[in-house]
């Protein structure tokens, strides 16, 4: 055995590892019993290829992770932009609503003032009408009183004239019919 070509005692270390961990299969295969259960060059090549494939998969995963990170960052950035735009829109809307509310409040103030004025005018109008009615009633009373005074004067004058002309007949018509 050429020990120097394998780094001195390393070959024995490999033998120990191979026997302890590599032996113990289900018996020997084919005609080469001593090689049964051990790796061929093709096996090793396949393993190396598998390692390369694993590295490629890691690179793909790393690339995917970077892409995901970049995507998340862009989404976050876009979300921030949208959030800012939404804030601006909300601020504009709130300002609009404030202006509208102020206009409505101002309008209501004017309406309230007009209603108050109208109420005042209605009250004044009612007062005038009541005054006129009272004045009319007073005038009617005065006229009625004057009429009563005139009647009384006329009666007194009539009685005087009748007393001058003759007897006073309280029921002149009945007396005339009886005569």
């Amino acid at each position, binding site marked *: 055995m050429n020990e120097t070509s394998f780094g001195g*005692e390393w070959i024995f270390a*490999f033998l120990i*590892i191979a026997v302890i*961990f590599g032996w113990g299969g289900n018996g020997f295969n084919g005609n080469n019993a001593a090689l049964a259960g051990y*790796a061929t060059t093709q096996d090793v090549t396949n393993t190396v290829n598998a390692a390369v494939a694993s590295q490629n998969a890691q690179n793909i995963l790393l690339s995917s992770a970077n892409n995901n990170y970049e995507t998340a960052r862009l989404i976050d950035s876009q979300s921030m932009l949208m959030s800012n735009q939404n804030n601006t829109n909300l601020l504009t809307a709130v300002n609009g609503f404030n202006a509208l509310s102020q206009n409505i409040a101002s309008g209501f103030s004017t309406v309230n003032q007009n209603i108050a004025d109208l109420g005042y005018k209605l009250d004044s109008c009612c007062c005038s009408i009541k005054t006129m009615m009272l004045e009319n009633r007073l005038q009617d009373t005065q006229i009625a009183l004057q009429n009563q005074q005139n009647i009384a004067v006329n009666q007194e004058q009539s009685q005087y004239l009748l007393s001058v002309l003759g007897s006073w007949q309280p029921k002149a018509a009945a007396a005339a019919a009886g005569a």
Partner: protein
Amino acid sequence: MNPIMNMLSGKGNNNIMMQALGAMMRGESPQQFLQNLAGSMPQLRGLNLNDLKGTAEALCKKNNVNMEQLAGQIQEFANSNK
């Protein structure tokens, strides 16, 4: 898959053969490598690391393994992974 392939592909023994190759390339001593490996591999404990050749021969004999042919395969494996 044969046991060596299991080791190389990392199944069961965490790619021990490749670890050993790496240690050899780095210039580490096989005794130190096996000593470290024994920390996690109970099967390696109790080996006489002062006489690796004698230990390997004893293990091969005990398991009825042709040591020369197995050494040739290992050398081929190492050469193909340099």
